């Protein structure tokens, strides 16, 4: 380039399949696939699993979520101005604890409870469903607020599973209606750029533009966002990071433990199993959580369907 000449526009002019590309920073969920995929995967994982009863129940819940996500009309989409304002301030546009939920989420919950066939479920699970059916709208909203703000009483750990499932559907459908061009990653890279919730697990891809990229999957709105690998998502530490797995397993799931802040996040390697699902496999790998917890590590954030006081 000559002095004072026009600068190159840095656009790749070679063949479209060549050149070094950057991974998509954000992947918005598809409500028509998200819950069906989780249900299918849970069914597969439940076979011969020590927790088969729980996983089959979770699969049933995911199938009910799928019905709600595909039959219920979507919530009103956020106006582009609101999204732009949030992106400008580096805040999540659908902030879980600040967003004004529309009443449609309660219709979703009612539909969810209606669709789950509870006849052969344990008594406690059926009672929790009955309790929710009888609750008034204000009570349900209070329960949802407490869940989203982390102020739930420990005795509600059972009931909240259905509420969390209905909120997952509501937020997933809302996130799916956002326009991806308007979104930005947050400065806190461990939080979802759509709703500001923590992730449920990380997926190391084996396909796509850049195989090997890590995507964190939102525990609430199912959005996936890119996060640098080999770095603790809690404290950003890199010095004392270990990938821990259960001896003799196929290596699909590893816990990335950080010796600096003593937390871990689960990573799923698509390379070893293309069917892996960030939500189903997280629930089914509770054994790894138990072993890593015994080593003194705390989990980055819980799965909303398995809360613990």
């Amino acid at each position: 380039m000559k002095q004072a000449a026009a600068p190159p526009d840095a656009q790749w002019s070679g063949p479209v399949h060549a050149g070094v590309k950057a991974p998509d920073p954000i992947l918005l969920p598809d409500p028509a696939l998200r819950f069906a995929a989780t249900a299918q995967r849970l069914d597969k994982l439940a076979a011969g699993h020590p927790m088969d009863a729980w996983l089959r129940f979770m699969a049933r819940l995911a199938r009910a979520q799928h019905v709600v996500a595909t039959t219920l009309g979507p919530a009103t989409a956020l106006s582009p101005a609101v999204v732009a304002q949030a992106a400008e301030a580096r805040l999540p546009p659908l902030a879980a604890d600040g967003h004004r939920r529309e009443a449609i989420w309660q219709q979703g919950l009612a539909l969810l409870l209606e669709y789950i066939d509870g006849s052969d479920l344990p008594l406690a699970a059926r009672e929790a469903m009955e309790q929710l059916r009888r609750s008034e709208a204000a009570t349900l909203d209070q329960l949802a607020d407490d869940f989203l703000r982390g102020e739930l009483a420990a005795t509600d750990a059972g009931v909240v599973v259905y509420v969390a499932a209905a909120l997952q559907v509501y937020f997933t459908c809302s996130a799916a209606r956002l326009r991806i061009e308007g979104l930005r990653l947050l400065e806190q890279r461990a939080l979802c750029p759509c709703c500001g919730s923590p992730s449920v697990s990380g997926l190391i891809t084996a396909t796509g533009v850049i195989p090997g990229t890590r995507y964190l999957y939102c525990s609430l709105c199912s959005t996936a966002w890119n996060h640098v690998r080999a770095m603790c998502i809690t404290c950003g530490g890199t010095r004392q990071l270990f990938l821990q797995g259960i001896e003799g397993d196929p290596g699909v799931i590893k816990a990335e433990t950080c010796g600096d802040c003593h937390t871990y996040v689960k990573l799923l390697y698509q390379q070893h199993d293309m069917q892996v699902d960030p939500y189903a496999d997280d629930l089914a790998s509770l054994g790894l959580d138990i072993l890593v917890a015994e080593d003194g590590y705390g989990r980055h954030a819980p799965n909303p369907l398995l809360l613990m006081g």
Partner: protein
Amino acid sequence: MPLTRREFIKFTGLALAASSLGMLGFGESGEAQAAAVRPFKLTRATETRNTCTYCSVACGILIYSMGDRAKNARSNIIHIEGDPDHPVNRGTLCPKGSALLDVVHAPTRLRVPRYRPPGGTEFKDVSWDYALDRIARLMKDDRDKNFIAKNAAGTTVNRWTTVGMLAASASSSETSYLTWKAVRSLGMVVFDNQARV
């Protein structure tokens, strides 16, 4: 303690009874899971970022090693792959880079300084002390003999043009800065690093 969905939680076999799983009547599943993992141990691997040693492109790599660094055990490199987060190569590697693991474990890999005297036919292993003393001696002799303090016009130039140096490809900006400071202070002008070739 309130139920949180943001803070760290610890799963233990006992605490599962008070979790969502236990509260909905699936306590047996939790107990079965805790019992099922009891006989198993955890494996540990480390994932480390580095730069490929080969050429000036300086691709990012991820190096996996087994062994616990904290427990004084020898760690063993088990796998090397392209770093998907590195803007230069985004996870890709050339055939040479893909074979880095074999370089690490090559039996012919250079581990100690070797020396072949002028007129000699074979290399022999020497100590680091010997090698560094010898290099320093030869550099000093050459610099004393060929150093140019002033040019023909009498301007101070402080040049040493008879010896050159080529630094490695895996150079960060800081390494390059140090290379410059160390070598340029001797008056050396013929030097570069492989990362710029």
